[in-house]
């Protein structure tokens, strides 16, 4: 086995983890009937919150926490506007992204050029020393493990628990859920905040582990790719996980293709993740019956008790 395989697979994991977080969060949000297009904005604010706190305090734990809080704070803005002031979800999501990109650049102004040592690896004795499998499965940082755990938990929560049933009920028919006494907007707000925290974690991973630097606009469309992944996964968490790794793989292939002597301009290779997103969306949407079956019926519609 060539020795570049393990490092290459490891970089795929690092490239995919931010997408996993963001997509999983958005699945919960959309399942509750809310379409938050502002993932990009929440991710980038999470990224600068995490990086800023990380560099200032030196604590990875606080940095990760700050990233999640930053994402959730942005999500709160979105939730307040769309759920309580009943603003258009598409427009508000766009506003969140525009605001987030500007706000993060403003906050990050003083952090350009600083570095963060990266997240500590959690080596597991013996297991991490197994050749090939060891470095691949054991010896990642906490966020990689957390992303995998999150997929499992969200899948379980949405399909097997009462909470999941409630979220889906609100997303499928908010009037029915309201009429039997559930507070539609509180449930939705909780989901929106969760989605924001997850997007914030995805952003934290970018600035704490993937680069680890602060660069303006460093999310580079990952929030939008995560949004496409949700459709791709037809609102199922484990499918989003595989989708994220597929896209992570494409990103890494494009980065390394030149190392393998592929004679294509780097710009064309860099287009791959975006083109792949379009292709995937077309494939999914051309099978419209399936997309319609899985999409929450109230997706994108605001709820007001007066109807």
């Amino acid at each position, binding site marked *: 086995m060539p020795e570049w395989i393990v490092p290459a697979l490891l970089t795929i994991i690092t490239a995919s983890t931010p997408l996993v977080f963001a997509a999983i969060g958005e699945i919960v949000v959309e399942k509750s009937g809310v379409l938050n297009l502002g993932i990009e904005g929440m991710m980038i604010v999470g990224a600068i919150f995490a990086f800023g706190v990380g560099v200032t305090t030196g604590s990875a734990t606080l940095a990760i926490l700050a990233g999640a809080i930053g994402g959730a704070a942005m999500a709160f803005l979105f939730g307040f506007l769309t759920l309580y*002031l009943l603003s258009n979800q598409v427009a508000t999501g766009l506003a969140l992204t*525009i605001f987030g990109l*500007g706000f993060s650049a403003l906050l990050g102004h003083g952090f350009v050029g600083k570095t963060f040592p990266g997240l500590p690896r959690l080596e597991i004795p013996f297991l991490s020393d197994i050749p090939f499998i060891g470095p691949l499965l054991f010896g990642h940082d906490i966020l990689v493990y957390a992303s995998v755990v999150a997929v499992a938990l969200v899948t379980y929560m949405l399909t097997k628990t009462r909470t999941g049933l409630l979220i889906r009920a609100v997303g499928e028919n908010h009037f029915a859920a*309201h009429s039997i*006494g559930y507070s*539609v907007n509180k449930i939705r707000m909780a989901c929106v905040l969760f989605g924001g925290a997850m997007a914030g974690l995805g952003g934290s991973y970018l600035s704490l582990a993937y680069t680890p630097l602060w660069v303006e606009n460093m999310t580079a469309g990952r929030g939008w790719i995560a949004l496409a992944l949700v459709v791709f996964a037809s609102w199922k968490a484990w499918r989003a996980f595989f989708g994220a790794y597929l896209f992570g793989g494409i990103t890494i292939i494009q980065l390394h293709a030149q190392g393998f002597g592929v004679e294509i301009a780097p*710009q064309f290779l860099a287009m791959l993740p975006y083109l792949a997103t379009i292709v995937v969306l077309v494939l999914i949407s051309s099978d419209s019956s399936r997309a319609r079956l899985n999409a929450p019926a109230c997706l994108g519609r605001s709820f007001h008790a007066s109807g």
Partner: protein
Amino acid sequence: MLRLELRGEMSRSMIYWSPFFAVILTFIAGMIMFTILGVDPLKAIITFFIEPLNSLDGIAELFVKATPLVLIAIGLSFGFQANVWNIGAEGQLTIGALAGGGVALLFFNVDSPLLMPGMLIAGVLGGMAWAAIPAFLKTKFGTNEILTSLMLTYVGLLVLSYLIHGPWKDPEGQNFPESRLFHDAAIIPIILEETRLHFGWIIALFGVAIAWVVMTRHMIGFQIRVIGMAPMAASFAGFKEKHIIWLTLMISGGAAGLAGTIEVSGPVGQIIPVISPGYGFTAIIVAFLGRLHPVGCLFAGLLMALTYLGGDNAQIEMNLPNAVTGVFQGMLLFFLLASDVLVRYRVRFGAAKKVTAGEGA
């Protein structure tokens, strides 16, 4: 206790008042933000919003910056009214600029009065071609145009990067990733001596007039509005939704492409790595702030142009990062969307009528 009560019909006056509320709220929030940043808020606001307009040069510059914003925003308004969300105007602007700029480079030595119109037409077609992809995918497969048009923006920016690092790089440019400087015949004429104000602004004003006629006095505008407000009624009336999707994307793509060509042949005069500081995205805010109405977009475009000038001025004068511009733009859209609740609902004091338990707000 505050609560919202659905109005019988949309409030006409609130539609026009809410942008003013939004601007005032943005000013207040901006002053709070400056205070937190440790900057004298009054001085910052003056530097940001008043100083840039102190000179003839500044006012001319305002129109230069507003030109692409107004053009793109009126194009987008058509789509937004019909619930067609083209948010890839930045990509269409880029491809339009490459098409128009490409004509200028192709006929580099041609000194003909036909060159400029040819470039503008090429720019429109370039933007349309880029918008045709989401239009085709949406009408043929039902693919979400928000995501496809946005993904194509990234692709378009990479096409630009490829061309100026490769085939279109100036052979005498010391390896800088820039095209050659355009010939005089490929530069949009200046209409006010000693400033950068160019003929593009006149084109933008024409655009406003044409869009106003189409939107308010023509069947197409009516169909677009009906499809947006009542899709069922539109289909009973026999309006073809697919036609409207194509039409609105062609209008918005073409307008963005035109704006792109005007940018490269006006203020810049060559193709450079960054053609637009996000005009395609800011135009979305302009369209909403202008109430999806051409005349509204004109004023909103001027206001947004001011935020760009203000950002630059604050960077020079007060050493503030010019990212402040993006923050102002985002806040403005937030406050606008929040104020818009008053269009459809009225605020009532006192506890909610006891219809059902639970829902408070």
